[in-house]
């Protein structure tokens, strides 16, 4: 699949419940867009999680030609909810493809609210990441409730779902299909389209029968022993 076609808007804003795998997806999306020749800027706007943030992969991203900006930039290991002024670059530079990695939950998504007037003038897409193995968002009802509260906090409208159902290293094809069913149910209820299913590379080829494209990823947010 072509990342630039599936994620066709200039700016992709990645939201969801924490632990759904937004950062892993964001990093992989930024790398895929860059590999397709796009000029990419990734904004790590996670003010919720102290570990496992995309800024930890700065070297990898910069080697791929991706510009990375993050909250509390000059003190990347702090949990200070300071937003980078460079965020405006993504909004203003029409040549850039922007990926905004937002921290978990409506609490994390609040960072977007102040930029709402600017974001809504741009070609953007608010993407909601679905993971059927996360206990608090595993049913269509709870997943939709989170989605709606993220929309309410940000003042933005969600226009795409991404199925990122996994169990870390224990992910199977069945897990991803379980997530596809959840994503389909959320989509059926809300009318928001499922954009793609995320699968680690060896599993991706077994899922080509799914109605939506499969986005193959390689794990970048590894644990120290992986």
């Amino acid at each position, binding site marked *: 699949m072509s990342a630039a076609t599936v994620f066709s808007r200039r700016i992709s804003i990645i939201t969801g419940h924490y632990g759904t795998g937004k950062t892993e997806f964001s990093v992989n999306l930024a790398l895929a867009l860059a590999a397709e020749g796009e000029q990419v800027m990734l904004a790590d706007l996670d003010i919720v999680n102290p570990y496992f943030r995309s800024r930890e992969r700065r070297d990898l991203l910069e080697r791929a030609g991706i510009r990375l900006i993050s909250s509390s930039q000059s003190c990347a290991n702090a949990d200070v909810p300071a937003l980078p002024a460079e965020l405006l670059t993504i909004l203003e530079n029409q040549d850039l493809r922007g990926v905004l990695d937002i921290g978990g939950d409506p609490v994390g998504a609040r960072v977007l609210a102040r930029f709402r007037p600017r974001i809504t003038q741009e070609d953007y897409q608010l993407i909601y990441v679905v993971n059927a*193995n996360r206990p608090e968002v595993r049913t269509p009802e709870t997943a939709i409730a989170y989605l709606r509260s993220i929309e309410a906090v940000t003042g933005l409208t969600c226009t795409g779902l991404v199925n990122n159902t996994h169990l870390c290293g224990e992910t199977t094809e069945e897990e991803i299909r379980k997530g596809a069913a959840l994503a389909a149910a959320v989509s059926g209820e809300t009318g928001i389209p499922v954009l793609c299913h995320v699968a680690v590379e060896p599993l991706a080829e077994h899922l080509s029968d799914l109605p939506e494209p499969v986005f193959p990823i390689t794990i970048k947010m590894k644990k120290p*022993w992986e």
Partner: protein
Amino acid sequence: MAKELWKGNEAIAEAAIRAGCDCYFGYPITPQSEVPEYMSAHMPKHGRIFVQAESELAAINMVYGAAGCGMRAMTSSSSPGISLKQEGISYLIGSEIPAVIVNCMRGGPGLGTIQPGQSDYYQATRGGGNGDYRTVVLSPANIQEAVDYVQEAFDIADQYRNPVMVVMDGMIGQMMEPIEWREIPKRNLPSKDSWATTGRKGRAEHNTLNSLYIEPELCDVHNQNLSRKFAEMEKNEVRWEEIRCDDAEIVITAYGTPARIALTAIEVLRSEGIKVGLFRPITLWPFPEKALHELAGKDHVKAILDVEMSSTGQMIDDIRLGVEGQKPISFLGRAGGVIPTVEEMVEAVKNTLKEVQ
């Protein structure tokens, strides 16, 4: 049961709820804030009590009050916050009140860093509070163990009328892993009626909980009783794990995240023909001293490499007590939130091996 994906801290909170935790008192601090966050959302749904205390001190003393009334009570924090709770822990032990205290450790000293650390080993196993005391200290190396041990911690606490600590580095609290909810071993737990301050209930005297003994002789008797209890814990509760130690020339000693890293390092080293194993204490107190002594005495073991997320090494004191000079001990320590890498551990094992060859 199907596996679910949980973040360490929220899993710990859910485990406490499943273990029948009646009351949670806490104060936010990175990297454990998901515990009170989860508790604040879920305890009221179960008709339980959640209080965000005004401080860590207040939280541990609320635990004293609630657990003194026979409630299952818990608090959690990260290193600097656990320092603040030390007085309360000493009083809980003095008054023989069961409770569960979770420390999601970060780098120190002082405010240190919000990144993971293991430099509260002394504090947990030697006691940062005053007086002669011990607490069972459980140390999970993955989220499955974290949820199992938190549930067991409530039972262990009730069994001995003594607080239990669950201690892990921030990585375990912050990472995501698949887990399943499984039955934990059942214990025969004593009734709390003889001591819990629940009113007279027809008794001649109301129950009193106190750690003050004015008469030295009485305080001595109290201390002797406590130490008999600690000896029981030492006898019954020690836990450890040995992985690929059967033929190991080098034994890595590590707990928590460094133990996970050791497993990868062992794979790398074994593929190069180097015989290395892992000795992982699961209870930091009681420390598996006899098991380590026995292992270190085996002919195939040439040396021990202790790895900790601590600059000075803290567990290494217990390693020395266990090994008792039978074999040389070397040390790899990273601190301040830096996690030792697989490569560093592989290198350290090779250097340790060179020194004994």
